[in-house]
């Protein structure tokens, strides 16, 4: 397999999409809908505009815990009844949390949407936060947090975020073992009351139903969700102060997960599409410079890619732009310096005319895959609503690409991809990694971090 990346679904738009994120049919919710007449399932996402940055300082993980707790029973349905009620309908509900949002995602067989929305109304209006259930869930989440750190890539990412933000709420949106352990059912109930309110929710649905019928059903089934205030926390700026490296110590590794990050560009920034074209040349694709040099030419690594969303997902605020690679341990003395050198070169020189032309053609043609399913189109509309990322049609996107000019793009890359200040994060043996990282031009410090779950 020649896998290089797990890149997030990128930018885009659609051919048939409405121009406005909020439907023309009145709804009492912030609602985006997509229609797919062939769909056998309804996909529902309830986006709470509060994530780990809304956790109190001493309770990291509260947003995550609260969302998970909703599925542990309501005042009318204890856990076993609730899970049976959901799953017998051919539905599944999952939870994800990042720094600014909590997303409750569900899929359900078309024929059962009405009954499923009845159950969801119960979940979102009368959660039980039962003490015994919460105690059990607390232990489960703590076990998951511990198990997550068995993945060395997660460790490397956690190391970088910890260094750049010095905040558990940024580095570990799911929380910490200590934070989760301090959360009480009262904390959960209070967070729920404050954040699970109409103004702080965005409901997104793709289904085969006509838009008007779908909106009518959502309005009628979820009308008892109360009003409140919008949260939408702001992501703080990352701290950069020259080039600095961190190592997460691990023995016995045969590969070295390695991240590099500089300041990023927000999802809705007008410069973002152009910079994404630059990144397509640098590290997004299998034909990009990173993989071609580090893997195809030198055989140092299996994977190498760069992305604007590898650390914090898609966000309204600027986060980090970074790259990832995972060279064999015997290649780190060559691979790590070369990786940073490539980053410097990209930052200083931008891309060539031939690369520019090929990337423009590639992205223009690939755009069809930004909108080929209702789920992707829904994702774009969510980004438009939350992050201000404009929706393009195929034509508009191609026009945008056509309007780009190489010299100004390279100026943009130089200005918006600074490498004088960087964070570098590697996992492995500090005795091996310290001299390698310290030898990279400009690196002022190498710190060994102790990452705890």
């Amino acid at each position, binding site marked *: 397999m020649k896998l290089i990346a797990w890149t997030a679904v990128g930018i885009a738009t659609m051919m048939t999409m409405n121009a406005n994120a909020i439907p023309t049919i009145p709804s009492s919710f912030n609602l985006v809908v997509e229609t797919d007449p062939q769909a056998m399932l309804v996909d529902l996402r309830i986006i709470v505009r509060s994530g780990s940055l809304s956790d109190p300082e001493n309770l990291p993980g509260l947003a995550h815990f609260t969302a998970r707790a909703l599925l542990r029973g309501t005042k009318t349905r204890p856990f076993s009844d609730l899970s049976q009620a959901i799953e017998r309908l051919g539905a599944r509900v999952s939870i994800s949390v990042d720094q600014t949002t909590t997303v409750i995602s569900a899929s359900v067989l078309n024929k059962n949407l009405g009954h499923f929305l009845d159950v969801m109304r119960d979940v979102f209006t009368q959660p039980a936060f039962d003490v015994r259930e919460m105690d059990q869930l607390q232990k489960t989440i703590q076990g998951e947090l*511990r198990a997550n750190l068995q993945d060395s890539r997660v460790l490397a990412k956690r190391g970088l975020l910890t260094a750049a933000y010095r905040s558990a709420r940024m580095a570990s949106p799911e929380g910490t073992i200590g934070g989760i352990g301090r959360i009480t059912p009262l904390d959960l109930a209070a967070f729920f009351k404050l954040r699970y309110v109409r103004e702080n929710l965005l409901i997104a649905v793709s289904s085969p139903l006509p838009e008007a019928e779908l909106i009518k059903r959502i309005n009628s089934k979820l009308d008892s969700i109360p009003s409140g205030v919008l949260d939408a926390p702001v992501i703080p700026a990352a701290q950069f102060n020259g080039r600095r490296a961190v190592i997460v110590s691990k023995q016995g*590794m045969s590969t070295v997960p390695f991240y590099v990050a500089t300041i990023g560009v927000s999802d809705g920034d007008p410069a973002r599409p152009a910079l994404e074209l630059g990144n397509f040349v640098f590290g997004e694709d299998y034909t990009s410079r990173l993989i071609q040099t580090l893997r195809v030419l030198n055989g140092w690594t299996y994977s190498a890619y760069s992305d604007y969303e590898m650390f914090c997902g898609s966000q309204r605020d600027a986060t980090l732009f970074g790259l990832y690679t995972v060279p064999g341990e015997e290649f780190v003395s060559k691979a790590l310096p070369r990786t940073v050198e490539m980053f410097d070169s990209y930052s200083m020189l931008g891309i060539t005319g031939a690369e520019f032309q090929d990337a423009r053609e590639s992205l223009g043609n690939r755009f069809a*895959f930004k909108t080929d399913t209702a789920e992707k189109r829904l994702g774009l509309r969510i980004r438009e609503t939350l992050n201000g990322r404009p929706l393009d049609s195929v034509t508009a996107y191609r026009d945008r690409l056509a309007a780009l000019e190489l010299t100004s793009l390279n100026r943009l890359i130089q200005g918006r991809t600074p490498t004088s200040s960087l964070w570098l994060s590697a996992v492995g043996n500090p005795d091996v990694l310290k001299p390698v990282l310290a030898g990279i031009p400009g690196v002022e410090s190498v710190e060994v971090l102790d990452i705890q779950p």
Partner: protein
Amino acid sequence: MLRTFVITLGMITVLQAKAFDKIGDVTLPNGLPMTQYRLSNGLQIYVIKNAAAPVFSFQTWFNVGSVSERLDPKIGRNGLAHFFEHLMFRGTTRVPDGEFDEVLTRAGVNDENATTWLDRTNYYQSLPKEALELVMDLESDRMTSLNLDSQTVESERAAVIGEYRIGLDDPDSTAYDKLYAAAFVSHPYQYTTIGTEDEIRSFTLADARYFYKTYYAPNNAVVLVVGDVVPDEVVALAAKYYGAIASQPIPVIPAPVEPAQTFERQIEFRHGQLIGSKVLIGFHIPEARHADSPSLLVAQAMLALGDGAMLNASWVRTGIASAISSDLNQLKDPGLFILGADLQYGHDSMELMGALDRSLSQLAVGVFTDGDLERARNQVLLRAYQQWSENGSLASYLGEFIASTGSPHFAIDLLKAVETVSKADIQRMAANYLNSTNRTVVVGKPIGQRSTGGERR
């Protein structure tokens, strides 16, 4: 640059009208029509028309994986099928190294990759609909004209070793490999698809050439096209680009039959990246074509799919495990029903196995409701339909069934059969397959934790 290869569809349709047979049409459960063709050289083609967006997915499945190489006396090792899969991206006599990816990228390719497994190798890409002929040209070219040289083999060997080592550093991957190694004593499923580092280092240019010449032939391949295409145009293009490739004898060496397991096997390993303990349990199950396959799918959902699953109650809610996993490897030959768990601190594998045995006993004697059964059936359908929601995942879903059963129809019939699985069927699955003598238990522990267990007879 390969753009100049493209000619008009009308010409091809006329030129190649007699080069293929139309085998049949069927309407899939999602309403999409599927048409099956076969070229005179044996290449099978399945086309599913889905005009929802102006794109299509194109997949080529070869009926060769790591089992065949192990059985082939001229290879007799593992890893070449996978290694060779990497080489397929490295250029042909007509298309220089690197250009395959570059041409497809300029054409707008999305999700281009390949995978190798025990019984098959697949290559896939999705493209805007205008690129159908281009991908036919490139894929047929690399089926027959790959340019294999020592330099390419050596540079790709390093990437394969890098991939192997990522797996080595991953405790989940390690546990999975150890489960298969212990569960099978005769059948080549016991060996990993990627091979060992020594095996990867041992392959020569001559090995790669032999493998290519022996196994990459139209009569050992299936092409699946799903998307905004016209079936008759697809097959006409296929006849044009693949029609001249000769069929050839493919070695058919039956795998040794795995003897029935008569006692529980237990394996323990230690891994530097493990923080807590991990358990994987594999039960032998029949081949994918077996009539019990739908019931096994529902039994898997009963046990391990969703919050309402039995093992969520007996493993997670009791605090023994923080997470459970399950995998039903229904393969060409008898495979494995796999259950897994990450243990919580203070709990051990014996406790987990005791809880499992209690759940399996309940399943065997029918201590579950019709509602539980309905939940499980609907969870199976939900998961299947999620895979049917995109061109690429639909093609992969059907391709996997073609590889394991010889036909995509089995996948379609399976979904109908799932709806009729009864309580008695589930009890029979538990009694016949999910018993302790038929299972292998792998326990992974962090380095430094005291050893327990061993092989239990």
